[in-house]
């Protein structure tokens, strides 16, 4: 090969190379979170989902203030409509304006019930997921990082617990910890929801610990604990976040189901689930709105969360080319 020598006086210096005003190259240094945020914003569905979810949260916070629900406040029953009046836009009767109709028996306004139910349903959903994520990430992280027998034992426990239907555990433990309190329900979901996350985190850690940056950190003498927390965990955060988001949706639905079966929060404090469970016996008699609207609220919230979760997944995935 023949070379051409431009001579030293023409060789660009480092400063020159760096200082070159390239046309349009903008070196904006963005960290992964900023990149993710930008991509998230562009994702139409994710934005819609976030709006829905945040909207629901606002309803949960402000709703009970604007439309307070008093369990003890029972109107004198209107004997003629014991089965509860349907929504105004169905019956055509706007004189009591009923957006979502009335319940049977105590003739409570379904709209008020749903608004108030939002609060507990969302608190239980978010709160228990936080607990699950913390426990699950710790458990799975330790198992995945250290591997070996510790990993085997820890994961066998997880597998065994997973083979037990969660429903069973919830039903039994709800007796255990005192029926009916929302704190109980929250704790139960939190302490049993960590299994899936543990599995996920464990497999993440298992593969991440083979990465070279871990070797590099070890070579410099970083302690195991620090490696787990400051090196591996930030890399594993993305799937965990996505999983947590979808977990909230799962708990909201599960809480509803458990209340529906009669094992959840006691009906004095409404959640979407126990509103539904109270409505059961009357649904077949024609009072569909009592069950429809709380369920609709759940669907909207969960839909919003799912959109958000999808958007998060696309935004945080370094390989996706959105």
């Amino acid at each position, binding site marked *: 090969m023949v*070379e*051409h*020598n431009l001579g030293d006086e023409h060789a*660009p210096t480092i400063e020159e190379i760096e200082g070159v005003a390239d*046309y349009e*190259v903008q070196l904006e240094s963005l960290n992964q979170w900023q990149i993710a945020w930008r991509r998230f914003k562009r994702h139409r569905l994710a934005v819609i989902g976030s709006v829905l979810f945040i909207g629901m949260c606002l309803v949960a916070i402000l709703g009970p203030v604007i439309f307070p629900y008093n369990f003890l406040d029972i109107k004198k029953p209107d004997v003629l409509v014991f089965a509860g009046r349907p929504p105004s836009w169905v019956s055509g009767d706007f004189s009591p304006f009923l957006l979502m109709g009335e319940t049977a028996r105590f003739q409570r306004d379904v709209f008020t019930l749903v608004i108030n139910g939002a609060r507990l349903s969302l608190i239980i959903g978010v709160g228990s997921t936080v607990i699950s994520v913390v426990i699950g990430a710790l458990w799975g992280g330790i198992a995945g990082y250290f591997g070996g027998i510790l990993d085997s034992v820890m994961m066998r426990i997880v597998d065994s617990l997973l083979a037990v239907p969660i429903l069973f555990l919830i039903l039994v433990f709800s007796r255990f910890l005192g029926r009916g309190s929302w704190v109980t329900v929250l704790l139960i979901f939190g302490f049993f929801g960590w299994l899936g996350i543990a599995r996920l985190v464990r497999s993440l850690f298992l593969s991440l610990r083979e990465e070279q940056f871990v070797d590099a950190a070890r070579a410099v003498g970083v302690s195991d604990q620090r490696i787990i927390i400051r090196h591996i965990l930030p890399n594993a955060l993305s799937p965990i976040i996505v999983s947590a988001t979808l977990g909230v949706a799962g708990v909201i639905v599960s809480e509803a189901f458990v209340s529906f079966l009669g094992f959840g929060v006691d009906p004095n404090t409404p959640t979407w689930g126990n509103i539904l469970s109270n409505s059961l016996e009357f649904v077949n008699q024609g009072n569909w709105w009592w069950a429809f609207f709380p369920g609709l609220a759940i669907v909207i919230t969960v839909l919003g969360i799912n959109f958000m979760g999808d958007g998060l997944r696309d935004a945080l995935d370094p390989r996706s080319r*959105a």
Partner: protein
Amino acid sequence: MTIESTYGSRPARVGPPPSDVLLEVRGLRTYFKVLDGTVKAVDGVDFSVKRGGRLAIVGESGSGKSVTALTIMRLIDQPPGQIVAGEVWFDGRDLLTLPISELRKIRGGEIAMIFQEPMTSLNPVLTIGDQIMEAVLLHQDVAKSGARDIAIRSLTDVGIPAPERRVAQYPHELSGGMRQRVMIAMALSCNPKLLIADEPTTALDVTIQRQILELIKEIQDRTGTGLLLITHDLGVVAETVEDVVVMYAGRVVEQGTVEEVLLGARHPYTRGLLNSIPSKGKRGHRLAPIRGTVPNPFRMPPGCTFEPRCPYAWERCVQEEPALIRLGSGGASRCWIHDPSSRARLDGYDHDTEVLPT
């Protein structure tokens, strides 16, 4: 050799090229529509390969060389990508206008392609034999047992020991170098007229690289297959091919024989590439990389795409995109410095260079 050019040379050709030309690409443009805009990955490329000839397309990442190769076979995913313009004449037919059923016969049968990543280019759940036989059964009129024999023979041809055993093995049981050999075997099993090799050695160890290159050359000599080699490695180019096309930002910037391009280095980009290669003769001197970086595909410079990084650029380069100029010494270069009106500058250019013995 070159079709597009303006300075008093032949007019652009219409219709199929003469029969000694195996592959002729004219005015190829492939664009990709993405969220941020349109990427003109290939923006007007022409070159040709003679029967049994060997051409290399050289360029850095993002120059569009791989996309060119994929476009020839119409292997571009047509949402995001789109073959916007051009003709690809192969053996007297324009591949870009062929119905897909005809094209499939040519793929694998007359034009074969091997890719950069041997680790992922083979299907992990099918045996090696299965995959080679698939190609054979598609393009040759043989029974299954005959196909198996051909597969075994191809494996022998590429120097894989114990081919009867290999045929039943799965890709994950082979090393990277072996897998690349299998890819070559698969490609050649149907005696194609043209072999397109997209960075065949980039993912391999240096020692294996050499072996694979030797293998490709040897097979080529033996069978007379044409070779279109895509690479960024100038060393590989020097040893394997006769003709070179240098690409930058989707366009051809220099063309010629290996001697013309590598020894002559008429285009500043080529010159920069060659200068940046470390070697014995440069010991004691500072390495001279090409300053700057490849332009942002969404905001290309208005004139010459290389201008921001070119040490010889002047106002004309900023304003006007240069045409591909045929050079008296052979080949072509897309730079105003070769324009007859820039003769003064050209003299300065020549004096800037010193030819050092290797």
